[in-house]
């Protein structure tokens, strides 16, 4: 990619940053929601541990685990909504006619939004998890979680782009996203580490991108996390390739559908 092309796509990231700064309300809403969720679950895991149930063997670590998964999930901007609206309003005709790749431009804008969300939500995760548990995982674990979490959030942004492109056919991608969220909840290990799930769910999850998005990066804060950085890095690279291919393929199909059906 030449410097000119990099400058083009960086410009999309920059304008998205400016846009996110203007729309702070949504981000602050996420921060408040995040704090509430962590408060509720820290109480829940404490109660479960006091009741002697085996699930929450280490309630403090579980709260930090949840803080990490939610940080990744909430940081990934829901760009599928913007893409869907642009397709519905017809504004997409402007974007398709520019001398840039539509897909890369949308992804770059998504990364811009991610760059605004991730630091604030990361700070919220750290402060709230510490406030509710009075404990922090080893510094080395936190240092690993951050880069892996950011890459996972970027990958999630790419997958949201894929969902958004379905609007060329569906017009409304909310049902797809709804299913996606449920799968993320179960197969991604949003609330609990995947090791605590039934074995067949763990097996199914390995064939999906969900574990590398949430459970993988977050499990570094667990004292006995089973994923190693090397394995997670390899899996993230594989899923990045798969996502890139899937997005390019569906975009080609979408533009040909636009040709066939008139958009």
């Amino acid at each position, binding site marked *: 990619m030449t410097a000119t092309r990099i400058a*083009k796509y960086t410009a999309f990231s920059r304008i998205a940053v400016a846009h996110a700064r203007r729309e702070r309300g949504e981000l602050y809403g996420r921060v408040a929601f995040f704090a509430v969720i962590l408060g509720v679950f820290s109480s829940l895991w404490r109660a479960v541990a006091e009741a002697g149930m085996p699930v929450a063997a280490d309630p403090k670590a579980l709260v930090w685990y949840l803080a990490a998964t939610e940080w990744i999930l909430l940081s990934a901007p829901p760009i599928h909504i913007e893409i869907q609206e642009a397709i519905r309003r017809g*504004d997409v005709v402007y974007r398709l*006619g520019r*001398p840039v790749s539509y897909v890369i431009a949308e992804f770059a804008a998504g990364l811009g939004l991610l760059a605004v969300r991730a630091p604030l939500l990361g700070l919220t995760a750290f402060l709230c998890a510490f406030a509710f548990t009075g404990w922090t995982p080893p510094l080395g674990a936190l240092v690993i979680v951050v880069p892996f979490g950011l890459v996972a959030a970027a990958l999630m942004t790419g997958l949201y782009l894929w969902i958004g492109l379905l609007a060329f056919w569906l017009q409304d991608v909310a049902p797809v996203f709804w299913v996606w969220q449920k799968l993320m909840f179960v197969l991604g290990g949003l609330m609990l580490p995947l090791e605590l799930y039934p074995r067949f769910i763990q097996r199914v999850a390995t064939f999906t991108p969900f574990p590398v998005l949430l459970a993988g990066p977050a499990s570094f804060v667990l004292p006995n996390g089973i994923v190693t950085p090397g394995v997670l890095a390899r899996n993230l690279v594989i899923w990045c390739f798969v996502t890139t291919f899937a997005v390019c393929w569906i975009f080609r199909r979408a533009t040909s559908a636009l040709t066939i059906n008139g958009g």
Partner: protein
Amino acid sequence: MQPAAAPVNAVELNHLSKSFRVRRARSEGVAARARDLFRPRTETVLAVDRLSFSIAPGERVAFIGPNGAGKSTTLKILAGILQPDAGEVRVFGLVPSRQRRQLAFQIGTVFGQRSQLWYQLPPRDTFELLGRVYEIDARAHRRRMGALASVFELGTLIDTPVRHLSLGERMRCEIVASLLHSPRMLFLDEPTIGLDVSAKAVIRELLWTESERAGVTLLLTSHDTGDMERVCTRVIVIHGGRLLWDGAIPALRRSYLKAKRVTLWSETEHLELTLPGVRVLSSSSYRTELEIALEITPLGQVVDAALRQAAIRDMAIEDAPLDDVIRALYADADRRSEMS
């Protein structure tokens, strides 16, 4: 000595055709609906049918037709967004469907009901983004932005969030956004839709001025005949995807203008004009308004008849509005397609 290269047309369309597959209406009954879910029944709609025309650089052309005539589809094909099924399309010598990115530097697009401005941000931010997208040198971009802001009288609008702009103000910014990279051609799809009378006048004036000043070729679709009359010199009319008329606007009037409106102020209170092809539209004291079918009775004959009855104090002769001309053109096309 080598022969001089033929000048490249801004637009060259040869037998362009484009059809869409659309879903047919849902069937009745559960079984039929279930079948539709897995094997939807579609039908092919011909949006553009062997359309041919060319536009020279610097021309200002109105591209009109009733709803569903294929105007927007043609514009999207010319911009490289849609691919044609058949025929040849060239814009400044480039094939839009194959050379879309190269072409993007040569053309600008304005879609009246769409927006390319970031809604929460001032237009300046979108302009900066477009400067990068179109690879404009930063200093040249600032100069160009300043010049266009001055021509389009953006003033403080350039730093006002788009959500606070009126439709007319936003449209001025949309046009500036489309002109920033100095395109040689501008495709405008209903740029004045929804605007009030004064905002329309401003947009028309600005488009005309910019085209005159910079030699930008314009291809404008609109249902508003005012846009054509005030901005364009030539009109292309399509109907059912086919070319119906291509020529200068005065020629269109002459060809399809079957009637003139004449108002006579006479010395007598009422005029009695019972000539063939003459219809009295209104008759009040000393004032008579007539519609004269020129093919049946020449104008002079009507005036002579009036003068024989009374002295004429004043007289006004008007063409029928261009709207009526266009309507007659569409009706004629409908009649012909029904007959065929």
